[in-house]
């Protein structure tokens, strides 16, 4: 999962890569996309169901209901990860389970569970954001830049 800085390839390595590429199984892009569409769409439709539940049964409106909805989806995803079910679905669905917020929860809980044996602080605490960290780091930084530009735009013109 980590991207390492690769040293430049030698000629022999390049020849090997071309040779190996011939025998690589072609990943069926169209089929993968169909699976991602069906599973990802189902997760979102289920999210809509949860959201409507909050709108009708509690004092939430369409806007505010998305927060508890996401919390519920995260809870379910963490539970499924714990039972080892989520990874099985993820193998089938690819981006269909990685892109919804459930994939974020899966990344966090699976690293937390995996490193439990190394202790609570050094294991769980240190490694929980190992996979999910980039999303928060880049999301926050991008949001900061966007919001800053928008705010300054509001002050000086626009």
């Amino acid at each position: 999962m980590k991207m390492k800085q690769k040293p430049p390839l030698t000629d022999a390595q390049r020849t090997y890569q071309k040779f190996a590429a011939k025998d690589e199984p072609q990943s069926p892009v169209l089929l993968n996309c169909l699976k991602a569409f069906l599973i990802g769409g189902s997760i979102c439709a289920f999210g809509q169901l949860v959201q409507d539940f909050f709108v009708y049964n509690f004092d939430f409106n369409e806007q505010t209901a998305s927060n508890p909805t996401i919390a519920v989806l995260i809870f379910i995803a963490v539970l499924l990860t714990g039972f080892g079910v989520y990874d099985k679905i993820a193998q089938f669905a690819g981006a269909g389970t990685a892109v919804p917020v459930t994939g974020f929860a899966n990344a966090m809980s699976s690293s937390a569970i995996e490193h439990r044996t190394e202790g609570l602080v050094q294991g769980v605490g240190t490694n929980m954001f190992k996979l999910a960290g980039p999303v928060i780091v880049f999301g926050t930084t991008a949001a900061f830049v966007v919001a800053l530009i928008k705010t300054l735009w509001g002050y000086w013109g626009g």
Partner: protein
Amino acid sequence: MMMYLWAFIVGGIICVAGQLLMDKAKLTPGHTTTILVITGAVLDGLGWYEPLIDFAGAGATVPITSFGNSLVHGAMAEAEQHGIIGVVTGIFEVTSAGISAAIIFSFFAALCFRPKG
């Protein structure tokens, strides 16, 4: 009922975009989700994400793109009240539920479950 259909279709399309990034551009899931989050933030900056939420409901709020959107939203809401400092203080305002839920549940999951496989 139409809302469920649109949530399914729009959510599905965002996932297909992610799948294409993974298959065609050969990105890791980490890179894919990062790109989608940044896309969500930029789209909200342009003011295009909110109409999508009105149209598709959970189809736009459940994919990780909405995380970027919510971060910008929280920052903007605070910035309107408190000026430029609000950009920093408000950035996690809306996403607090998602992040804290993920941390808390993951921690308890680590206590309750053993690694599989």
